[in-house]
C-alpha cells in the first residue's frame, strides 16, 4: 500500500515536472531529465527506466507529442512538445499539487503545535 502511494506520488510529480518544463520549450528526453535534476537541486531525478515509460504514457494520453529533429550538436533527438491537451492538464495538476502540499503543511503544523 505504502509502495503504491509512493509510486503514485512519484508518477504524479513526474508528470507535473515534465508538463511544466515542456510548457516553456520543447525538449528531448536527456535534456528533460537533466533540467529537472538541475532545477530541483537533485530532489527530483529521472532515470532511463522512469523517464521514457512516463513520456510514452503521456504521449498516448495526448498530453505531449514527440518529433525527431537535430539538436544543437547535429544529432537526431526526439523532441517533446506540449499539446493543447497537455496544456489544459497543467493548471488542474498544479492546483491539485498545491492543495496537496497545503494539506501536508497544515498537518505538519498541527503535529508541531
Amino acid at each position, binding site marked *: 500500500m505504502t509502495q503504491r502511494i509512493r509510486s503514485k506520488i512519484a508518477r504524479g510529480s513526474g508528470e507535473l515536472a515534465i508538463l511544466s518544463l515542456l510548457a516553456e520549450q520543447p525538449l528531448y528526453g536527456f535534456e528533460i531529465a537533466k533540467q529537472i535534476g538541475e532545477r530541483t537541486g537533485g530532489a527530483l531525478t529521472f*532515470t532511463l*527506466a522512469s523517464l*521514457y515509460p512516463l513520456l*510514452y504514457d503521456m504521449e498516448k494520453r495526448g498530453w505531449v507529442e514527440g518529433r525527431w529533429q537535430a539538436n544543437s550538436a547535429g544529432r537526431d533527438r*526526439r523532441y517533446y512538445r506540449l499539446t493543447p491537451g497537455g496544456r489544459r492538464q497543467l493548471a488542474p495538476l498544479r492546483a491539485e499539487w498545491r492543495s496537496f502540499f497545503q494539506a501536508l503543511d497544515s498537518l505538519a503544523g498541527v503535529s508541531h503545535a
Partner: protein
Amino acid sequence: MPDWKKIVREQMSSEGSSCDLKEEIIAELAAHLEDGYQNEIARGLGESEASQHVLSAVRWNRLAREIRRVNRKEESMNNRTRALWFPAVVNLFVATILLTLLEKLGVHPRMIHAHMVLNHYAKSHPGDIKYLVPVDRLVDMFNLPWLCTLPLSAALASLLAKRAKAPAALRLLAGLAPSLVWLVVFVAMSLEFELDRWQFPTGFPLEFSYFALSALARIVLPAVPLLLGTLPFLREPDLSRTQTN
C-alpha cells in the same frame, strides 16, 4: 564509442521485451545513453569508465516492465474499442437510421391489440380518460416493423466484433447494445423515482404499468430480434476443421 542501439536491443531482449519495442524507441533510448556517455566524457572520464557508469545506472528489468505496461494499456484499450465500443455504437446508429428510414417511408407502427384494449378500457372506464393519453403512446413503442429490422443491425455489430476477435460475451454485448442502453436508462430512471410513485393510484395502475410496459417495449422486445441477429455470430470457429484443411 559503443553501439548503443545494439546494447539497448540486447539488454531489452534479455528482459524479454525486444519484440515489443519499435525501432523508434530503441533509437531514442540509445540516444539517451549516448548523451549520458558524452556527458561523462565531458566530465573527464575515460571511454570505458564512462560507458560503464552510464550502463550501471540503467535498471533494464524495470525499463522493460514499464514499457510493456504502457504498451499493454494501449493495446487493451484499442482491443476493447474495436471489439466492443465501435460495434455497439454502429448497432445503435444503424438501429436509429432504420427507425428514421421506416418513418420516412411511411411505415407506421401497428398495434391492433393495444387499440382494442384501449377502446375496451375507454368504454368501461370513461372517467379515466386522462390515463389513456400516455397509454396510447405505447402504440408507438411497440413498433413491429422496426423490431423486424433489428436483426440486421445486431448482425452487423456482432460481425464487426467477431472480426475484431472479440470473445462470445463481447459479441453478445455488442449485438444487444440498443437494449442494454435502454436498460441503463431505465435503471437510472427507476433510481430517480420516488417510491410512492410506484404505488398504484386509485382506479388504474398507470405509473407503474406505464413504466413496466415502456421497459418491456424498449428493453425486452428489441432484445429478442437483436439476439436473433447476434446468434449466428456467437459460434466459435471450428479450429480443428481449419487445421485439418
